[in-house]
């Protein structure tokens, strides 16, 4: 429990090591199981890619409204 006794950042380094190991193992198994990805199509229109930000809350206007609603 005495995490504060550890060097700053050591906990994160340990975490990174574990997660890297886990991901590499799982990605290897998936790579073997999945077909190779199709080659990219010729570039058409520059559409914004579906980034991982898709799960972040970006509609701040709506969010602010909800927050105000809840406070009332």
């Amino acid at each position, binding site marked *: 429990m005495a995490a504060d006794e550890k060097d700053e950042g050591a*906990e994160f380094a340990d975490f990174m090591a574990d997660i890297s190991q886990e*991901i590499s193992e799982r990605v290897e198994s998936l790579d073997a199981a999945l077909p190779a990805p199709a080659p990219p199509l010729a570039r058409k229109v520059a559409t914004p890619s579906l980034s991982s930000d898709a799960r972040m809350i970006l509609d701040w206007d709506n969010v602010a409204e909800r927050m105000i609603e809840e406070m009332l």
Partner: protein
Amino acid sequence: MSVVNYGTREITCKIVYYGPGRSGKTTNLQHIYSQLPEERKGKMVSLATETDRTLFFDFLPLDLGTISGFNTRFQLYTVPGQVYYAATRKLVLQGVDGVVFVADSQSRQLAENIESLQDLHENLADDGFDPRTMPLVMQYNKRDLPAEEISPLEELDNKLNFRGVPHFPASAISGGGVFECLRSIASLVLARLSAPAAKG
């Protein structure tokens, strides 16, 4: 829900810290943030009242860099614990991949823990998730408080952990147990990489 995108070579996991008010959810994120090396320290967004209660939510993006060719990011959120922020909790849960339930070990908070857990299950179900299969770990926080003020771990586990998910004692204020929980939920979420992509 898939957390791996082979097209963009990205792995993104959304993890939500859930629990009753003042159980230590924000403290968990603050400890994680304090441990990040400078080059990985992004912005921790925190909206709090003057008395440090979480007003809306906290958001900590964890960019882990490229692992096995995948740009890997964990997005850590907390929800406001107070009962009247129900809609906000539901909103923050959208697209969640895993939940850390931060329970307050104080004996007098047991009812609040149970209420919050029920609230979690209802909100997950409302969002179309199966609460029985959502990756979940239990954190019994505030173990640093005097023994006479807190419930034994066995009692908390009996009352709260009916799914038998991984559980950890913690003292988030000093960092104890924080990374153990994060590691555990990350592992559960990543385990789904090899499972069929399905909601819930």
